[in-house]
């Protein structure tokens, strides 16, 4: 983490690309290009916003920021905050908001549900289904509980699965380019999250 200096992040060069270009990854890293898994996932969260279009009523004003919410045990720490600080997507600022499970989640645009909330997935997601919140998780049962995106590890690399039927029901428009990269996950009821592509 120490290697990822702040100016590099602030230049706006995408994290993934930066990661792959860094020459000397830390030995303990489990993610791509020597970056820690949580760091890659944070970058993915940020990048998802670029390929997703929210309905206009999802924002109070044209200048309203895109709100990234984290519920449960935050795996990213300050990394995500630093990553999005000062960045804009489609002319909107990005803000990170850590919320309690009981809180009103409809104000979020992207909701990351940590594995710690595994037991409450269905309850958490139920009011959001068919809405305009992009739900992302990394636990095995997330998609079957009605989640939209789920991080998986594929050969040591962070990838993601998408729940296409549920996504079709939502009010979100996700770029096909993004979906092209996704592994289909709607039938993943085993919770393993390790299907081959």
């Amino acid at each position, binding site marked *: 983490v120490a290697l990822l200096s702040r100016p590099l992040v602030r230049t706006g060069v995408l994290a993934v690309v930066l990661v*792959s*270009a860094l020459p000397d990854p830390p030995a303990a890293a489990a993610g791509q290009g020597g970056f820690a898994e949580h760091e890659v996932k944070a970058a993915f969260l940020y990048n998802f916003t*670029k390929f997703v279009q929210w309905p206009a009523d999802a924002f109070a004003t044209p200048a309203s920021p895109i709100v990234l919410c984290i519920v449960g045990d935050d795996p990213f720490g300050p990394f995500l905050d630093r990553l999005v600080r000062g960045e804009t997507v489609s002319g909107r600022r990005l803000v990170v908001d850590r919320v309690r499970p009981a809180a009103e989640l409809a104000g979020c645009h992207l909701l990351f549900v940590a594995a710690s909330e595994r037991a409450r997935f269905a309850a958490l997601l139920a009011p959001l289904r068919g809405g305009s919140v992009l739900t992302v998780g990394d636990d095995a049962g997330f998609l079957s509980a009605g989640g939209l995106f789920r991080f998986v590890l594929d050969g040591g690399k962070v990838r993601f699965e998408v729940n296409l039927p549920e996504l079709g029901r939502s009010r979100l428009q996700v770029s096909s380019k*993004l979906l092209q*990269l996704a592994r289909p996950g709607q039938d993943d009821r085993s919770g393993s999250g390790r299907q081959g592509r």
Partner: protein
Amino acid sequence: VSRPLRDLPIRRKLAAILMLATGGALVLATAALVVIELVRSRHEMQRDLASLAEVVAQNTTAALTFDDRATAAETLKALSARQALVAAALYDARGALFARFLRGRSGRIPAGLAGVAPGLVGGTLVVVRPIELEGRRIGTVYLQNDLAILYGRVRFQAFTVAGVLLTSAVAALLLTSRLQELIARPIVELAATAREVSSREDYTLRAHKQSEDETGQLVDAFNRMLAHIEERDLALQAAKEELEARVAERTCELEQELAERRRAERRLAEANAELSTSNQELDDFAYIASHDLKEPLRGIHNYASFLIEDYADRLDDDGRAKLHTLTRLSRRMEELIDSLLHFSRVGRTELALEEIDLGEVVTAVAESLAVQLRERGAEVRIPLPLPTVRCDRVRVGEIFSNLISNAVKYNAGDHPLVEVGALASDPAAGDDTGHGARGECSGPVLYVRDNGIGIPDKHREAVFRIFKRLHGRDQFGGGAGAGLTIVKKIVERHHGRIWLESRLGAGTTFFFTLAKGA
């Protein structure tokens, strides 16, 4: 146009010109089409490749963003449907190679973005396009097209076009070879007519007019010219005939004139011969007469002398005086006869012509007249050397002797002065001697000038008449009166002439020439 083409017959020339023109147009058109097609299709390929790069850029943003090399590679692989594409690559934001697609031998993918050069590279076309997302450059597309296919297509098109143009050119030539007859035939026929006219010299021929264009005008002009020539030919013929008639007429007249003249010449020659004969006869007669007259005259004189010597005492004074008169008259008669003899001799004898120094002649004459000169206190002067002239020495001496003695004789002064000299040439016409123009070069003019009594104008001709004396018998030393007649005869026998200038009381100058052109 080269010399061989210039000398070709007009049909061939037209064919050659048409072939050159269509061939040139063909080559130019083909070349232009090929170049245009090449530029156009290359431009099209560039545009096509650029739009393909755009599509690739659009479709690989997610793959680049989420570091999905496999998907990116698949996206590139999908481009393999394009035949001309030999290489495609994606570079990430740092310029490192992210994904690649390579086919064939001509493709080349640089390891880093730094090695990428867009444009025409070694028979390929390279297009490079940045990939952007949210205003940030996240990577670069690299596409490389092989131009061989394009070139092949253009070549095929060029051959097609050339084939089409060649075919149409051949068709056009076939067509024009018939059409060029329109131009060539009238000219060829005109040339044939012109040749025929000049070889047969038949100006009644006419060229056949086939069209109303310039060639037709040419034919008209040619025919008009022929008509003119024919007209003139006829006129010339008529003039020639008239001229011939006139020449014949004139010749006849001339022949008549000539015959007339010959007759006249013959008559003249006869008259001349007669004259010459009668002249000769006259000379002979004068000689014979005077010679024969001398005998009885001598007798008369002798007998008169005998009478005076033997019978003087028997006669009275009157008788003696009469006898003296008789002897004086007979002597006088003898002198006249001698002069006549001399004169006729001058006309009868041949001249002994040779180159004579006149100075010597005059000196000799002056010496022979020394006594007479001394008596009168006269002087002969030769101020300048006299020329050498071809003449008879004795006769010319006689001329000078006569003229000098006359000059001394007819002089009333105490110191007669005689000057003998020569002028460069005959003063010719313009003198007042009445001899008229002579024209020819007549050699030097000699003169004898005195300061004597002079000769009146009215006697200028008379002085040359034989036995003509202007003065009394005993005045100025007497004499027979034949001297100047003989002088004139000698000058004329030398084919010269003699004349004089004189002022009464001041002196006389005799001029004469010897032998015209001698």
